[in-house]
């Protein structure tokens, strides 16, 4: 007699649709009934932790903070300033990284050009900024990868609501443009090329309808798959993550 698998037991425990056959078997089989009882002994004990009640007036607090953010967001100038500032920050970070790289390639120059302590402090600062930048780009690629995986896993049957995904894509698109430009200026070719390939897909998602027909979803999935975007993101991100943090120079 074929007993039910552990996966089927989990479905039985929750009485999920599709587990009817397994449930019937468990009702007849002592061994599987015992297995289910052992599973239930664990899962029955997993009760949710008590959620601490937010303080009185929490709702008003949430609104106050939110309202402030909404008002700031609605000012068009503020939006451009925000992106301008973000772009500037990224450019500075990339440039700093480049400078650090050049500096580390020519250590003699760095040592002779300045008195030790100042040069080392500067090198450490640049190294830190470079590391921060790598983390930021890696994070961007991880988020992009995840959303593409989610989209490629969606089932194209009927209208698929991607409103929540679109919100995330809009944010990714804005960052992607900045990272692509600066990566290109910095000569980080593999990163720039990948972000360049990613951008049209993000743009299509952000500007397209929020409810996709089966054909539209299939089209996007095909585009992602034929370009191998998920795989490329994984590979390039692994390379970025594997970049060792530069050793800190002791301040003498």
């Amino acid at each position, binding site marked *: 007699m074929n007993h039910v698998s*552990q*996966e089927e037991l*989990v*479905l039985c425990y*929750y009485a*999920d*649709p599709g587990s009817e056959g397994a449930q019937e078997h468990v009702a007849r089989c002592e061994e599987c009934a015992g297995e289910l009882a*052992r*599973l239930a*002994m*664990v*899962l029955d*004990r*997993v*009760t*949710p*932790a008590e*959620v*601490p009640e*937010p303080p009185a007036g*929490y*709702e*008003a607090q*949430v*609104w106050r*903070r*939110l*309202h402030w*953010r*909404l008002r700031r967001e609605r000012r068009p100038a503020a939006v451009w300033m925000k992106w301008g500032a973000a772009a500037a920050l990224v450019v500075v970070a990339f440039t700093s990284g480049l400078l650090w790289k050049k500096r580390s390639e020519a250590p003699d120059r760095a040592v002779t050009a300045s008195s030790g302590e100042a040069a080392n402090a500067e090198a450490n600062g640049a190294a830190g900024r470079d590391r921060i930048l790598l*983390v930021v780009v*890696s*994070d961007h690629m*991880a*988020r992009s990868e*995840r959303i593409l*995986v*989610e*989209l490629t*896993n*969606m*089932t194209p049957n009927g209208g698929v*609501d991607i*409103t*929540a*995904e*679109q*919100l*995330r894509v*809009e944010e990714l698109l804005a960052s992607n443009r900045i990272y692509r430009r600066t990566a290109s200026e910095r000569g980080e070719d593999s990163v720039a090329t990948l972000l360049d390939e990613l951008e049209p897909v993000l743009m299509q998602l952000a500007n397209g309808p*929020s*409810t996709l027909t089966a054909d539209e979803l299939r089209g996007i999935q095909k585009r992602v798959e034929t370009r191998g975007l998920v795989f490329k993101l994984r590979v390039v991100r692994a390379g970025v993550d594997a970049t060792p943090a530069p050793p800190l120079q002791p301040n003498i």
Partner: protein
Amino acid sequence: METSDYELVMRSRGGDDDAFRFLVERHSRTIYRAAYRITGNAADADDVVQESFLRAYRALARFDARAQFTTWLHRIVVNCALDLIDARRRREGRIDDGEDLGQLPSRAASPDRIALGSELQRAIETALDALTGKERTAFVLRHFEGMPLEEIGGILGTQMNATKNTVFRAVRKLRQQLQPFTGTPV
């Protein structure tokens, strides 16, 4: 009679801040609880509440009138919480994909401490914390909130089989972590 969510959404779309304030005040506590169950702490839950309403506001124009506002908002909350967990784990340098329980340090309580209920609760929280963001979310939605697998898949963007596997992996890891408390073989 209480104004419906749908009407408030329509008024918010037209730029009526008070209408959106009503929505925020009506749903803050509920989504705080949902966010807390996924993130496991108050500060993160609060951040998720803020971020979710912000994302919801930005997407109001795309809200499908046929959908339930609470379902739509819940979906945003889960995604915000997942983003936050992933970001937190990356900062902490923890791997979040395809990790096997064997690679995780066992933080389960030792058998001599298992008599205390609070210990069990702590062990459950630790075990939940050892799950990946997706596993934790899927488990919380299935086990604590009783959400059907299909709906969980809709939120996580995964197909039925992948959703089942995610829940199953979470259960397997929890059983292993809680084995000292139950004495049942995994």
